[in-house]
């Protein structure tokens, strides 16, 4: 299967992150995990990823801040958010900032894949 797009996953929960990578790779995507948002920021190059899947609450740098920083380097980067806190202020910030979807954890895998496919096909 030819790669369908390169996805960046940043979640400080390594077990969940690894599972997400496996689910994405099974679905034919190339995917890379960072469990430290600051490390991700240091290593990601512009144009490297089509889409970022970011946890909203992380130590050091939250998902919205990370997205803001990544997007300054790569204005075309698409992003979706994941959070265990559906009623957090960060959810509204994420949407205001231009993240396309906010998933509430636990994220149901087939639902996630469906949405990502749609987003990558249409860019919205």
């Amino acid at each position, binding site marked *: 299967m030819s790669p369908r797009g390169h996805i960046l996953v940043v979640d400080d*929960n390594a*077990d*969940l992150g690894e*599972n*997400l990578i*496996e*689910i994405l790779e*099974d679905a034919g995507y190339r995917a890379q995990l960072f469990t430290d948002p600051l490390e991700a920021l240091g290593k990601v190059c512009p144009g490297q990823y089509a889409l970022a899947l970011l946890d909203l609450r992380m130590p050091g740098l939250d998902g919205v801040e990370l997205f803001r920083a990544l997007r300054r380097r790569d204005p075309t980067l698409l992003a979706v958010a994941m959070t*265990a*806190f559906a*009623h957090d202020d960060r959810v509204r910030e994420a949407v205001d900032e231009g993240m396309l979807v906010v998933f*509430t*954890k*636990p*994220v*149901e*895998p*087939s639902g996630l894949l469906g949405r990502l496919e749609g987003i990558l096909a249409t860019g919205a």
Partner: protein
Amino acid sequence: MDERAPMEEHLFDEIKRYVDFNAADELRLVALEPRAAPHLPRIVDDFYDHILRHTGARQSISGGHAQVARLKVSLTHWLAGLFQGPWDLGYYERRARIGRVHVAIDLPQQYMFTAVNVIRAHLADVVLSTASPEELRPELHAVDKLLDMELAIMLHTYREDSLHRLRQGERLATFGQLVASIAHELRNPLGVIESSLFLVRKRLDPAPEPVARHFDKIEAQVRLSNRIISSLLDMVRERPAAPREVGADTLCQAAQEAVTAARSTPLTLELRVTPGVLVFADPDQAQQVLVNLLLNAADAAGPSGRVRLTADTRGAFARFLVEDTGPGIAPEVRRRLFEPLVSTKARGIGLGLALCKRLAERNRGSIGLVQAELPGAAFEFLLPLSTGSAE
């Protein structure tokens, strides 16, 4: 909770002693009763005219004419009770209920004084126009003492219940923060379990029979855990109601479907829904209350038991009655049944009914334990009728 030493004087005896209410007063009230009785309906009418003329006091009566009619019946009983004695602890308990009702309807305390004064003036008129000259003064005193006692009881129970409410609110705020953070933290491990299960299922497709069954169990339990977390979060989060007009039949059917879907064992549920009843409430929240009540009833009824859901009207309210054939609620639990973290179930966490109560109140309704036809517990859930329904 009654924490006084057993030797200590009961509050009612103390009040009686304070106002010097004695056996002679009791005899005078009994003697006054036949002369006062014919005036009671007029006093009651005037009493509510007085309240309805006053903007502030009127706000405590939200149920329109039907509610006023019911209140008039209660007040007539209350007035008749004034003269009937015996003025003992049973009397105190009966009268104490009225203070609690005033807390429940959020009646500001100052209105109790003015309201009792309306009654005082009327009863004084009765005494002045009917008592013999030598009995005039002592009879007026007896009525005064009695009404002072009534006020003292009302204010005492009012204070007791307000404090109780306040403490409950504080307790909930503290627990709420703790509960919310635990609930959120649990979503991460559940996410790992769910996604790992998804991956294992893909790797082992088709799974041999016993494995597939365990997969199903894990999935069902993860879903259950998520539901528990969501109701915990609903409980501690003040989600405002978004009321709109919705049919009682729609709510009942949706609740029935949700309950059937949530239970692995079948349930004998009898629906008795009066057609055309429209409520004004947040449909999700109303349904959540019904589902909670029905699931509790189904648990209590057990596999061979029955559950009945009735929907009809009571004055300005739609009434949903959930009855079961289970063992009923133990008397010692009844008063605290709707407090958070009180449960009658071995595996309950005691949030269901507390959540129901909050949701009912958020929708300007109420919930309570009542006596009904079926032998087990019966819960009455009231929601305001939409103005589109006939009262």
